[in-house]
């Protein structure tokens, strides 16, 4: 009799493991898959402390590629338009368009963690409650970090498509640092291509286009080392970026699949606006700046403040033999 009970329990647990969409890991895969293939248009609210901003976002994937348009609707107008690898940031206040073409060892969307399996080692994954968000039935997924190198996440995904409806970044006390949440969303169907065009008035005053030239590089060849042990973080890109006649800036990006952190190395003489040394913070984004010889080192990312400082202090320069 006991044997039968055990067999039943075993059977039940196996059945559960095989059932679709029951575990957090499958939900993460589904969210990623949806983010890569869905076209949509909608409005989301970004909350960061007392800051509360509404933005409109449109994403169209068709035979010509992958296109996105983000327009910040509150306060100072800002727009970002991405066509494939080219990103243009429109800053109407300064009449500037910042243009850059992403490059790297892994280009978008292959940049995404293609396997979510290793996230299990870095975060405890669990399923949370179901909730209704912007008219969609969603399932929530929790990622609780296993160490102090990263923040926690709570994600809400549409049950039928896997589309991410809401995302929250949490600190070690489970307090919300940032939240993205759709208030209105339309997935698929006919999405007008005009929605991809910049909304700012381009006529009248002359706009200034600042193009950044980005090249892959190896900062180690120039004598720079980052001697920090960063379990779970992988070096995903290492580039040299340069705007017009400005000095080139080195950038190394580390990512664990959820959280990312960039290290910038810039000659002090090249900066127009001085960066304040020390720690600074904005929601889940933390940064640490220090001077090293005639360079400014800035570590910036959505990781805890102790981590950006640790990485910043691990940057070393040694002359080539």
């Amino acid at each position: 009799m006991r044997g039968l009970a055990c067999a039943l329990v075993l059977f039940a647990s196996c059945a559960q493991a095989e059932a679709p969409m029951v575990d957090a890991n499958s939900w993460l895969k589904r969210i990623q898959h949806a983010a890569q293939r869905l076209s949509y248009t909608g409005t989301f609210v970004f909350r960061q402390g007392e800051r509360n901003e509404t933005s409109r976002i449109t994403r169209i994937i068709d035979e010509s590629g992958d296109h996105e348009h983000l327009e910040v609707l509150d306060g100072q107008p800002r727009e970002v338009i991405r066509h494939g690898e080219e990103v243009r940031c429109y800053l109407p206040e300064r009449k500037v368009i910042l243009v850059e073409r992403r490059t790297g060892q892994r280009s978008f969307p292959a940049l995404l963690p293609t396997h979510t399996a290793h996230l299990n080692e870095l975060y405890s994954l669990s399923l949370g409650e179901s909730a209704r968000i912007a008219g969609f039935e969603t399932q929530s997924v929790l990622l609780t970090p296993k160490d102090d190198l990263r923040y926690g996440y709570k994600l809400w995904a549409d049950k039928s498509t896997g589309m991410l409806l809401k995302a929250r970044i949490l600190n070690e006390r489970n307090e919300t640092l940032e939240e993205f949440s759709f208030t209105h969303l339309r997935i698929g169907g006919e999405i007008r291509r005009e929605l991809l065009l910049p909304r700012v008035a381009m006529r009248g005053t002359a706009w200034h286009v600042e193009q950044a030239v980005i090249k892959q590089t190896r900062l180690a060849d120039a004598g720079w080392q980052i001697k920090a042990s960063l379990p779970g973080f992988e070096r995903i890109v290492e580039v040299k970026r340069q705007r017009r006649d400005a000095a080139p800036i080195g950038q190394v990006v580390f990512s664990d699949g959820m959280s990312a952190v960039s290290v910038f190395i810039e000659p002090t003489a090249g900066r127009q606006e001085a960066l304040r040394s020390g720690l600074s913070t904005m929601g889940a984004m933390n940064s640490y700046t220090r001077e090293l010889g005639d360079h400014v080192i800035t570590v910036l990312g959505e990781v805890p403040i102790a981590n950006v400082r640790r990485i910043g202090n691990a940057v070393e320069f040694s002359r080539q033999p």
Partner: protein
Amino acid sequence: MKPAISALMDDGAEASQHQVALRALEGDPEAQEIWARYHLIRDAMQDTALLSEGFCARVSSRIAEEPTVLAPQPAQRKATQPKWIGKTMLAASVAAAGFVAWSILASFVDWNRAATSVAHAPADLEASAVAVPMTSAVNEYLMAHHAYAARGGLQGVAPYVRTVSTNAESRR
């Protein structure tokens, strides 16, 4: 005793002589008095602005209250310090304010403007130890970061909303 103290001030004696002078300055009120007087004389000769009474004690107590310095200070600030300060001020510290306090201070204060610089020192220290709100100076870095920082499902352009709004800055 006087020649030993004088030599210590000018760094003109043997190390063993220094030890004698330093020991005397530690415990002997008379030696401390000589030390203070010699400095007063030299300050007058070099036209150095006098520090107000109890200056050293105030600096020591302020430093004791400061948070730990976590970031190194910019290297070039040391260059503004006149050469002779390193020696004599370090020696003066033994008697007056304590070695550690002075050497920290000497590393970032332009001593010719010591009295005013000390007033700004706490802010400098705090900037290194406490996180402050980001300023728009980092906006270019934020954009460069978002270009590569893939996020779980939000890896598109949505993270670009995280720039420092200059409106928000001016409100602060």
